[in-house]
């Protein structure tokens, strides 16, 4: 990992950060295996340079973008965010990145663009987990355009002041702190603007369990377990889960008029 230059956090929360060792040693990245220790063991196999992000669909500035050009183009800032996994555990992570809104404005989406879709690298030689059909590879995720433009939505390229470790989604990943972690797609190679709602990986696998929105909601259980509480990594007992993971002030307006119970 190399040090990054970034401006200090403007959205700090008064909660203890999860130690780096846990952020990098315990997470889901099924491209490298389904055990939470697998990403740390096997993600070294992934080459993150050279790396290009393809921009396609309903925007003016389609094309190929080199990762280092992207990182240089937008000023980096630190964001300390809660991360709530759909499996009912959580962390507090100091990301470094730039708001997705800045990138989207630079790409000039057309007026028909309503959604932004993302894809992860697909390469079973570098990603041994892709040799099993656990998910429909490549991993894909998407946001409504207004969600993508929300100031909270971050394209992260680092954590704890250093470039992203491979297992956390190097070289560039999405962070949407009011949504369950599976929305935060890692190691992005493609961004596409669309008019219709794109398909998303976990929703394809089990639509009753993982919705398109994936908003953190303690009142809507996962069909197989409760979402009312979570275990913060490093804590012994569960704590209460907050609506929108505690970011309701910033994002609840996006869903006004929609039934919160359909937003899982």
């Amino acid at each position: 990992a190399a040090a990054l230059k970034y401006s200090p956090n403007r959205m700090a929360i008064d909660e203890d950060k999860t130690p780096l060792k846990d952020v990098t040693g315990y997470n889901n990245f099924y491209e490298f295996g389904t055990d939470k220790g697998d990403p740390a063991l096997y993600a070294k196999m992934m080459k993150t340079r050279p790396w290009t992000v393809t921009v396609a669909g309903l925007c003016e500035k389609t094309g190929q973008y080199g990762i280092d050009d992207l990182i240089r183009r937008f000023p980096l800032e630190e964001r300390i965010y809660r991360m709530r996994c759909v499996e009912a555990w959580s962390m507090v992570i100091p990301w470094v990145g730039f708001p997705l809104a800045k990138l989207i404005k630079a790409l000039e989406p057309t007026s028909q663009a309503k959604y932004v879709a993302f894809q992860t690298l697909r390469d079973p030689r570098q990603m041994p987990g892709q040799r099993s059909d656990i998910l429909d590879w490549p991993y894909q995720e998407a946001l409504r355009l207004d969600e993508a433009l929300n100031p909270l939505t971050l394209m992260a390229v680092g954590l704890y002041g250093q470039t992203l470790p491979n297992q956390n989604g190097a070289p560039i990943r999405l962070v949407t702190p009011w949504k369950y972690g599976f929305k935060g797609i890692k190691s992005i190679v493609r961004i596409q603007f669309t008019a219709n709602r794109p398909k998303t990986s976990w929703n394809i696998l089990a639509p009753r369990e993982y919705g398109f929105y994936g908003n953190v909601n303690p009142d809507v259980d996962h069909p197989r377990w409760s979402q009312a509480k979570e275990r913060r990594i490093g804590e012994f007992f569960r704590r209460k889960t907050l609506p929108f993971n505690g970011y309701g002030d910033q994002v609840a307006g996006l869903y006004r008029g929609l039934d919160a119970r359909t937003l899982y």
Partner: protein
Amino acid sequence: MARATGTMARRIESGLIWLLCVMPLLILAGQGLTDGLTANPVEYVLRALGVWALRFLCVTLAIGLIARFGLWRRAMVYRRRIGLWAFAYVCLHLTTYILVDQALDWPGIVKDIVKRPYITIGMAAFILLIPLAVTSVNKVRRAMRPRHWLWLHRLVYLIAVLGVAHYYLLVKADHRDPILYGVVILALLGVRLIPRRRGAIK
């Protein structure tokens, strides 16, 4: 003299089997002391105890067959003990869930049992195991008709299947492990259904 060494050998054998049965707990304790329980130790221990319960159930099921096919007849001597260890791991798994994972949140636990099929099934497996554990005590066993006792203890196959279902339903996407246990248990049950040769050891 020969008898004395025989007794000694059996004591060592018995001690070794006892040691193998507590080994998973020793490993967990060792991992606990060396920061080896992952970033989410509660989840890790809960899962490990459950998986060991399933493994001990599989071994218990396998012992009858090992003895029946003459591979190691004396294995039968240890079947009850290993079966009771399976029950012990189930109890530890359940205790961890109630005391630590749910922190004695009884309304939450009751809701879990009613609403979550995997917990309903796991709890059913636990309750079904209780009469098996109780009737494994020699006094109780002798008080029962052998036919009834055998019938009751065949429930262990149903319990093992419920255990696998409990595991399968909790996994998000990668079902390879629960399927593996399911195949092992169905294979053991399948072999069990092959009719015995006449005069074979019971």
